[in-house]
C-alpha cells in the first residue's frame, strides 16, 4: 500500500453508554489532531444502519484508506464495521477499533475526566495501529470430498459408513486381515447382551458392499502430507504402497487390552484369566465346571504407572458376573473392586441386577490390594475387605482380572505422521476436552472410539458418527475460506531451525525442499506464537505485527512516532 494513510475516526456515543461518562466531542476534536487522521465524527450509535452509512459515505467523500471506530468491543462488532468498509470498497483489514465502552466508560463511570483521558489514549493507540495496517486477503481452498478412516473396528466402520451416507468417498485402512477390530474377540455386549458378532456383521457387510468405501486390509499409513481438504496419504501393504488424496482424516485405531502378566498371579497361578479370556471361554462353552469365581477390578489401571480409569471394566464385570450366575445360580461370584464405576441409568441397573443375583461385591483398598497365590486346589485370594475391616480368604476355581484398555502401540507413529498429540497415557488427545472432543487442533483430522480413550461400544459408535459428521462439514461445503490474520515467513531470514513448526499446534508450518519454513495460511489460526518465538525474527504475524504492537504501546504512553 503505497498511499499515505488517510484515517477516519468514528466515535460512538452508544446512547448514553459512552457519551454519559466520556466527553465524546472532545475525543472527536482530539482525534483530528492525531497524525494521518483526516476525518472524525461522533455518532449516536455507530453500529446503527445510519452510522454504518456514514462510515461508507466518509470513506468515499474523504478518500479514507483506514477506519477507526471507537465504541464497544471488537469481539462482537468488528465484523459489522468491517462489512461496512468492504461495502465502501475498503479492505476489511484496514479497520481498527478502540474499545471505549466495555473497557472504559462502563468501568470508570465515576471518573468521567479520567475516563475521557483514557478514551483519548485508546483512540490514539488505535490510530497508531491503523497507520500501520495493511490489507489482507482471504484465500479459498477446495476440499477434496474423500475421507480417510484409519482403523477398521466398530468405530472406523461406523465413521466410514456415516461419511458414505453423507455422499463422500472413503478409504478405510485396517492393519489386520479382516474388519471388526476388538469386537472380533468379544462375546456378548452389555447392556443388552447382544452378541458382538451380530453387531459386527451388518457393519462389515455395509462397508464391504458400499461402492464408495475402499477397504485396505493388511495396510498401514506410511505418510500423510498436506492440510485440510488436501491431504495426500500413502498407505503401505505387502503388495506395495498406494497414494491418494483425501479431504479429511478420522483416527479410529482403537485400543488394546493390557496383558496383565505379573499382576494378581496372572501367568503364574493356574486359573487366573482376564475378562476377555473368560468371555472367550463362555463363547466357546469351554468354561467347564466352575463353582466359584473372583473378579479383581482395576487390575492394572488406576495405579501409578497407568493412572486412568478404563471405564468399561466395572460394567463388563457386572455383565459377566450376571451371565455366570444365570448359567448356574449356585456359583459364588465375588467382585473385588476399588470404586464401582457403573455410571448412568443402564449400568447402575446392571449393578443392581448382579447384586440381586447374589454376586458379592467386596471393596478393597488401593493400599492393600488382593493377593492371588497358588492354593491347594487352585488359586487362593486373600483380600482385605475394607468395609468389613477384615481379611477374607477365598479359594475360587477361577480368578478373573478386569484388565484395562491400553493405547494402541501404533499410536505413537501415527501421532507423529499426522502431527497430532497424544496425552500422557498414550491415547490421542482432542483439541478441547469439553468443547471439541472429536477434533484435533489440526483442521481436518478427527478422532473417535477407543483411540481417544477407553469407552464402550455405544459410546464409540456415537463418537464415530460425531467424527464423521464433523469431517463432513468442510467436505460438504467444498471450499474453505482462510483468514488473513496469519503468519508469514521471510525466507531470506529463516534458518530452518524448526521451532515454529514445533510450536504450531495446527501443523500450519512445514519445511520446503530448501529446509525453509513455509506457512500454509489456510491452516494458520493466527495465534502468533511462532512469530513471537522465531529466533531469527523471520516470521511476521499479520495484523498483529511487532511494529503495530509497539506503536500501540508507545501510543499508550503518549508517544507518537512518525
Amino acid at each position, binding site marked *: 500500500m503505497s498511499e499515505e494513510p488517510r484515517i477516519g475516526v468514528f466515535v460512538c456515543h452508544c446512547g448514553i453508554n459512552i457519551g454519559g461518562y466520556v466527553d465524546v466531542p472532545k475525543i472527536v476534536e482530539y482525534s483530528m489532531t492525531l497524525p494521518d487522521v483526516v476525518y472524525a465524527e461522533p455518532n449516536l450509535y455507530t453500529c446503527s444502519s445510519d452510522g454504518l452509512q456514514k462510515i461508507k459515505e466518509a470513506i468515499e467523500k474523504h478518500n479514507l484508506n483506514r477506519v477507526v471506530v471507537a465504541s464497544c*468491543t*471488537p*469481539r462482537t462488532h468488528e465484523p459489522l464495521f468491517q462489512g461496512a468498509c468492504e461495502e465502501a470498497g475498503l479492505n476489511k483489514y484496514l479497520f481498527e477499533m478502540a*474499545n471505549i*465502552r*466495555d*473497557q*472504559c*466508560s*462502563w*468501568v*470508570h*463511570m*465515576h*471518573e468521567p475526566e*479520567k*475516563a475521557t*483521558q*483514557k478514551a483519548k*489514549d*485508546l483512540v490514539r*493507540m488505535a490510530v497508531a495501529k491503523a497507520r500501520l495496517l495493511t490489507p489482507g486477503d482471504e484465500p479459498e481452498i477446495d476440499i477434496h470430498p474423500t475421507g480417510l478412516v484409519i482403523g477398521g473396528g466398530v468405530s472406523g466402520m461406523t465413521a466410514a459408513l456415516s461419511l458414505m451416507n453423507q455422499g463422500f468417498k472413503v478409504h478405510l485402512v485396517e492393519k489386520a486381515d479382516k474388519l471388526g477390530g476388538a469386537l472380533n474377540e468379544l462375546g456378548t455386549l452389555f447392556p443388552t447382551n447382544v452378541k458382538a458378532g451380530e453387531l459386527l456383521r451388518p457393519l462389515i457387510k455395509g462397508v464391504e458392499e458400499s461402492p464408495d468405501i475402499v477397504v485396505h486390509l493388511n495396510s498401514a499409513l506410511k505418510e500423510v502430507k498436506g492440510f485440510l481438504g488436501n491431504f495426500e496419504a500413502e498407505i503401505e501393504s505387502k503388495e506395495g504402497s498406494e497414494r491418494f488424496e483425501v479431504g479429511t482424516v478420522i483416527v479410529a485405531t482403537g485400543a488394546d487390552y493390557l496383558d496383565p502378566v505379573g499382576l494378581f498371579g496372572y501367568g503364574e497361578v493356574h486359573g487366573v484369566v482376564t475378562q476377555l479370556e473368560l468371555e472367550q471361554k463362555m463363547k466357546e462353552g469351554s468354561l467347564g465346571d466352575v463353582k466359584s469365581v473372583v473378579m479383581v477390578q482395576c487390575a492394572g489401571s488406576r495405579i501409578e504407572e497407568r493412572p486412568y480409569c478404563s471405564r468399561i471394566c466395572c460394567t463388563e464385570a457386572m455383565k459377566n458376573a450376571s451371565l455366570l450366575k444365570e448359567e448356574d445360580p449356585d456359583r459364588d461370584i465375588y467382585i473385588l473392586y476399588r470404586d464401582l464405576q457403573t455410571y448412568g441409568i443402564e449400568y447402575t441397573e446392571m449393578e443392581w441386577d448382579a447384586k440381586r443375583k447374589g454376586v458379592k461385591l467386596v471393596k478393597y483398598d488401593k493400599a492393600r490390594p488382593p493377593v492371588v497365590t497358588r492354593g491347594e486346589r487352585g488359586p487362593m485370594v486373600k483380600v482385605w475387605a475394607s468395609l468389613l475391616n477384615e481379611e477374607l480368604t477365598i479359594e475360587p476355581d477361577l480368578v478373573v482380572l478386569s484388565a484395562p484398555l491400553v493405547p494402541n502401540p501404533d499410536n505413537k507413529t501415527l501421532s507423529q505422521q499426522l502431527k497430532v498429540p497424544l496425552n500422557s497415557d498414550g491415547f490421542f488427545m482432542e*483439541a478441547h476436552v469439553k468443547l471439541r472432543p472429536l477434533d484435533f*487442533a489440526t483442521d481436518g483430522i478427527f478422532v473417535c472410539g477407543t483411540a481417544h480413550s477407553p469407552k464402550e461400544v455405544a459410546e464409540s459408535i456415537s463418537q464415530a458418527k460425531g467424527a464423521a459428521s464433523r469431517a463432513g462439514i468442510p467436505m460438504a461445503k467444498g471450499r474453505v475460506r482462510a483468514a488473513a*490474520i496469519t503468519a508469514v515467513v521471510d525466507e531470506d531470514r529463516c534458518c530452518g*531451525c524448526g*521451532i*515454529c513448526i*514445533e*510450536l504450531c*499446534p495446527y501443523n500450519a508450518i512445514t519445511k520446503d525442499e530448501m529446509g525453509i519454513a513455509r506457512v500454509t495460511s489456510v491452516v494458520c*489460526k*493466527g*495465534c*502468533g*506464537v511462532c*512469530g*513471537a*518465538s*522465531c*529466533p*531469527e*525474527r523471520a516470521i511476521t*504475524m499479520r495484523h*498483529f505485527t*511487532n511494529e503495530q*504492537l*509497539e506503536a*500501540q*504501546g*508507545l501510543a*499508550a*504512553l*503518549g*508517544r507518537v512516532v512518525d
Partner: protein
Amino acid sequence: MAFEPNIVGFLCNWCSYAGADLAGVSRIQYPTNLRVIRVMCSGRVEPAVVLSILAEGADGVMITGCHIGDCHYIDGNLHAKRKYELTRRLVEKTGLKTGRLRLEWVSAAEGQRFADLVNDFTEQIRELGPSPLSGTTPDLGLLLKVRAAKAAAEGFRLRALVGKEEKTVTDGNVYGEEVTQEEWDKVMTESVETEYSRHRIHIALTEAPGSVKELSEKLGMGSQAVLEHIVALRQLGWVDVQEIRGTSPVYVTMEVPQ
C-alpha cells in the same frame, strides 16, 4: 498531583479480552490506568516488545491469557509463561523492579477477577512509584540497560532457548533424556547473563568507542569478563579494534546490517 501510573496491558482475544469486556458489561469499576492492546494469544507477546515499552517509560506491563488448559490455541499460554519468564529475568538484570511486570490468567467469565487484578496491579505500581524511565528526564543509564535487555531478547540465542524450552522440559530432549527445569534454568541463567552483558558492551561501544578498562568502569562489570565478551563480540564481527591508545586497545562497533 498524585502519581497516576501508565500501565500497558496485553490481553489475549479469547479469554482475557472477553473477561475485560465482561467487567464492562457488569459495570464493575476499576482504575483507569490500564491501556489495553489486544492480541490473539498471550503467547504472541514477545519479551522484546515488552522491553521496548518499558524502555519508553511504561510504569507497568501486564500480560493476561487464558487459564492453563483453556488456551484457544491449545498451549499458547504455556509459551507465554516461558516468554514472560525470560522478560522477567532480563528486567531483573537491568535493575528495573520486576514488580512492574505481571502475568495472569483471566477467563472470559472472570470480569470481577479482571477488575480486581487491575486494581491490585495499579496499586502495586503506585507503590513502586513512577518508572525511572518515564517523564522528561529518564534515567539514561538504566535506559541503556533496558535497551541491552531488549537487544538480548531479540537475539537468536535467547529466543531459540525459550522456543525450545516447553517441549524439551516437558517431553525430554532429542536423545530421549529427561531435561529438568533446573538444568534448563541453569543454561538460561548463563545465557541471559552472557547475552545481556554482550549487548551492554555493544550498546556502550555504539555510544562511544572505549577500552576494556573504560567499559568495565562504565558498566560496572569486571574487566576480565568484559575482555572475554569482547573476544566473543569480535568473533561475531560486531566489534573491532579502532586504535591502540597508549596501552589500551580501543574498540568500536562494526556495522551489523540486519
